[in-house]
């Protein structure tokens, strides 16, 4: 089986209010070296599939169709064996 670890973030040009809020909060907690924060989604999808290539294609498709909205979000993923 393969597990896709999918990271989803808002596109660079899109406002990330959550990231901003966390950035500000970390600053006011005294972490003055925090340059930038972004907040997104993390998904783990486990597939009964051993072929990495097939899995890769499928995860890509699932991301495009359901897991993300590519209008505002970008995603990356890695596959790990489980």
């Amino acid at each position, binding site marked *: 089986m393969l597990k896709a670890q999918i990271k989803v973030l808002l596109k660079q040009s899109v406002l990330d209010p959550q990231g901003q809020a966390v950035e500000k909060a970390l600053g006011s*907690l005294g972490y003055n070296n925090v340059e930038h924060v972004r*907040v997104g989604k993390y998904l783990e999808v486990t597939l009964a599939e051993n072929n990495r290539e097939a899995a890769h294609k499928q995860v890509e498709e699932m991301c495009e169709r359901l897991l993300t909205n590519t209008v505002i979000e970008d995603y990356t993923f890695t596959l790990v064996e489980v």
Partner: protein
Amino acid sequence: MKFGVVVFPGSNCDLDAYHLVKDVIKQPVDYVWHQEESVTGYDCIILPGGFSYGDYLRCGAIARFSPVMKAVKEFALRGGLVIGICNGFQVLVEAGLLPGALYRNTVLQFRCQFTHLKVENYETPFTETIERGRLLKIPIAHGEGNYYVDNETLRQLESNGQIIFRYATEQGEVSDTANPNGSVYNIAGVCNANKNVLGMMPHPERAGEAILGSEDGLMIFDSILKHWEGSRL
């Protein structure tokens, strides 16, 4: 009895709590700005509902670090009465003043509706005058009111009488169908071991006038008043 209603950036039920205290139960009340460092002079602190700091990251997670929360913590440790409603409950949990955690409703949607609450402990400052067996009709409005504690903590809460309200049907049955958000054990409100800090997801301040559909929320405030009067004797 003097009330303080804490205002975080993003609080939006501050007005409602203020209105209830001032115009319905007719007690002195102030807004307390989140940057205040002291809450002395108040007899009861209300942490109102809303979306403090947008509820970004997690509900209540950022608000707990505001200066006023340090003061509220000290106030609570000295035995002061604190009631956190909805977002206020979330802040109290994040601040460690109450056990457990609140997260996304299992329905994955915001829910605004009337609920019926069964009172589990009448021996608290918040419930002592409530007629035994009386269900309270009080509305909820939240997306993250799913209360979680692990089994061990749940047992402790139970044996300490810290579970205060549970969601029930109109007939008083505590069941899955009555559970609007997936909370463990249908928990709608809990208090600390000392019983002076209450957190609840339902909004008693929205159930304080007949024209709004229920006056049952007043029972909680009546208890608070009676308790305070008693404690002064």
